[in-house]
């Protein structure tokens, strides 16, 4: 294990020694040593709350470390007391939300640091445009400098955010979850750009939940767990499995679900020649009871638009939807809900809880209309009865349904979410990228929930960005591209490589 890499400190761009941080009595970071070389891409991984964001806050001057910490930049001992100190040292963050100004032009965003200068000169628009073009040309980026940023794709916005750091002479750029909204093709472009900058001796700290991408781009990877540094490793020493073990301390067995025979099952929904101009074209498929159907494809492939059509929010131009054998006009989400179709947008599967509210309140929120008595008031007795029944049925461990959900363990919270959806007695649930931006352990519990839902004879459409996750968790996989279904597979008949090839082609 290469915990200590024997190098003369002078060679490092950034050296942190004995960095700790306490918030009140809680230790967020404990005695961390950390280094980055000039021109290095350094991966930083850890679960939520592992201390990696505290480390970033210390490097960028948002919070100050406890006494005894030492920070060196370019061989000089420094103190980073506020974000300006970090800027001056050339340390910049590209936040996950990119923190761009959507209503300003690309040129203004790239050069926004100019507005910070003490000498307040009038703005020379021609000069601004020329300078921004120069920065972009130098790095081979071709974006119209006069376009407003909100008219760019997320991938282009990402480049603008990095260019902005470059324009204010960044030496170290911290990328916080940079790929979470990018397609694979866009990720490739981003990585090529990072390599380009690497060659100019610019260092990157790459923070991501996507471990395969961390392994792909980083030279070294530092792992955090529970406020401690587990170690810094050469990329060669690691693979995804080992990395997630180091992060969680647990062996996570993300194995394929056992093959289930669903041929005897009844068809619950059939879609025929569904077309919506500009969204998707001639889409046909069937869905069986209790089936988990994976829907994979790049963003913009029409998968979300298709899902929203089934949920009644994006009426099709042509084609038919048969639900439980009957042809249905699903022209509003009210119709869909009445049929028993649910749609869970990104992240909602786990974010669907109001943590400060009681278990009871969280459980009944989806079925309020069923527990209303006269005058539109909530029947409190019935509410309690419904909640207690659910707690029993789903084996949720809590002393009382009146306790706030946040007092429950993670696993039991997840059960509350599940119970909440089941109470609406849905027949089909569409999950739109439920694991987007979620860490390894949480992902695993989402997969678990999905399987449990399907065992209750619920059919699921599982929209995903990751080939491996549909392979491991779905009964059947549809691949969507440019508004069309281009492939249908059983997980046992295909591989990650094959799926990726089809998507990228």
């Amino acid at each position, binding site marked *: 294990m290469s915990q200590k890499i024997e190098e003369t400190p002078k060679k490092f761009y950034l050296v942190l020694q004995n960095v700790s941080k306490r918030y009140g009595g809680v230790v967020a970071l404990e005695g961390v040593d950390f280094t980055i070389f000039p021109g290095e891409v350094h991966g930083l991984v850890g679960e939520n709350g592992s201390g990696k964001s505290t480390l970033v806050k210390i490097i960028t001057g948002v919070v100050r470390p406890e006494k005894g910490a030492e920070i060196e930049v370019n061989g000089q001992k420094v103190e980073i007391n506020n974000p300006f100190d970090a800027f001056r040292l050339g340390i910049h963050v590209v936040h996950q939300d990119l923190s761009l*100004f*959507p209503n300003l032009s690309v040129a203004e965003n790239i050069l926004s640091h100019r*507005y*910070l200068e003490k000498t307040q000169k009038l703005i020379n628009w021609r000069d601004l445009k020329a300078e921004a073009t120069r920065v972009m040309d130098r790095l081979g980026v071709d974006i119209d400098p006069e376009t407003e940023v909100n008219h760019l794709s997320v991938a282009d916005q990402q480049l603008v955010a990095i260019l902005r750091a470059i324009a204010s002479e960044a030496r170290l750029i911290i990328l916080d979850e940079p790929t979470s909204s990018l397609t694979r093709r866009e990720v490739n472009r981003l990585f090529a750009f990072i390599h380009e900058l690497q060659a100019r001796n610019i260092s990157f700290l790459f923070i991501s939940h996507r471990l395969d991408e961390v392994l792909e781009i980083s030279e070294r990877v530092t792992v955090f767990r529970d406020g401690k540094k587990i170690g810094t490793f050469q990329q060669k020493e690691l693979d995804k499995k080992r990395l997630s073990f180091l992060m969680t301390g647990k062996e996570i067995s993300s194995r394929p679900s056992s093959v289930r025979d669903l041929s005897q099952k009844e068809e619950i929904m059939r879609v025929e020649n569904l077309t919506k101009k*500009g969204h998707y074209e001639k889409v046909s498929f069937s869905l069986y009871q209790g089936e988990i159907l994976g829907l994979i494809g790049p963003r*913009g492939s029409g998968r*979300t638009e298709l899902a929203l059509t089934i949920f009644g929010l994006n009426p099709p131009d042509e084609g038919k939807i048969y639900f439980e054998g009957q042809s249905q006009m699903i022209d509003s989400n009210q119709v869909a809900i009445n049929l028993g179709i649910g749609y869970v947008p990104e992240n909602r599967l786990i974010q669907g809880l109001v943590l400060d509210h009681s278990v009871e309140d969280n459980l009944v929120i989806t079925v309020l209309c069923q527990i209303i008595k006269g005058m539109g008031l909530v029947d409190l007795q019935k509410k309690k009865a419904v909640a207690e029944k659910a707690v029993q049925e789903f084996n949720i461990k809590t002393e009382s349904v009146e306790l706030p959900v946040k007092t429950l363990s993670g696993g039991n919270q997840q059960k509350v979410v599940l119970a909440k959806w089941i109470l609406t007695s849905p027949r089909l649930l569409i999950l739109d990228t439920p694991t987007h931006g979620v860490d390894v352990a949480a992902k695993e519990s989402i997969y678990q929930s999905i399987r449990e839902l399907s065992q209750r004879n619920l059919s699921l459409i599982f929209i995903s960005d990751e080939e491996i996750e549909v392979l491991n968790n779905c009964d059947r996989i549809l691949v969507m591209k440019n508004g069309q279904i281009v492939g249908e597979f059983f997980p046992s008949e295909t591989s990650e490589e094959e799926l990726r090839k089809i998507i990228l082609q």
Partner: protein
Amino acid sequence: MIGREAYLVNKKIFQQTEFYLGIIIVALSFFLTLINPKFLTLENWFDMLRSNTFLGILALGELVVLISGGIDVSFTATATIAQYIMGLIITTYYIDNVLVAFLIPIPIGIALGAINGVLVYYTKVHPVIITISTLNAFFGFLMFFSGGKWIYNFPPSFRSFSRLQVFSLVNARGVQYGFSIFILLWIILAIFTWMILKYFPIGRKIYAVGGNLEAARRAGFNIFRIQLFVYCFMGALAGLASFVNASLNQMIQPNSLVGGELDILAAAILGGASVFGGSGSAGGAFLGVLLIAIIKNGLILMKASAYWHEVIMGAIIVAAAGISAYQQKAKAKREGEILVQ
């Protein structure tokens, strides 16, 4: 999450707003001229512009506040206090000097604006709540100390200044009319506001803050200074507008301005300023005021009841704010955030 080409369709949205406003103004003018040929005379236009200078100057201030992502509804009280103090000073000491009268209300407006700015920044309460509160507090103070007394009998120079014209013409009936000095003041202020917004770093920072406050904070912009500037600018223009108003009416009534906030908000929003911040332009605000002025003028020429003015103004605000909100929603949709439920 629709195709990328969709992102490019709505480019240059500000120009679009101004373009459509221009078309509506031309069409409406054409229509009104058909009904009453008097509409399209220089005399009517000069008169219309002069009587809307107060509105026009305030709309420029409101525009800047809206761009920054804030809102100010207290400016009528600010203007009333500024003009009342000015009136008291020049009538009590009988200062026969327009320049002095002109300069008194501005610092008063700035001071009251600063109160708004400080409260908005430090309390983090929504500016609409803050400025409704200060509107009432300012106005209450004024009514208490003034006892609601009107001020008139201004020095002669104050009276003659209000009749000053940049150039004058004579109409067919031999009556003289002209281009009021106040219209010139309005136009100069519009150009000044446009310059600030387009060419001064503070102006770009105002757009930046309105576009993404958190990003502005992270970029190291001094948010307090920007918000303070914005509300002080509004205050300064309220002071200036109050001078124009007192001068045109030759009378200061403590209760005549408060209640007219919505006309100004409507003009700014109609001119392309978003209630969500980050967009709007001085040219748009100017055209917004012009459109409202034409509608009001048209209603008078059509001899419609005064109550219809209120109805129409209410409808304009709902329509303008509705369109603005719709655009926001359409934008969110373009960016793939399709909202469910």
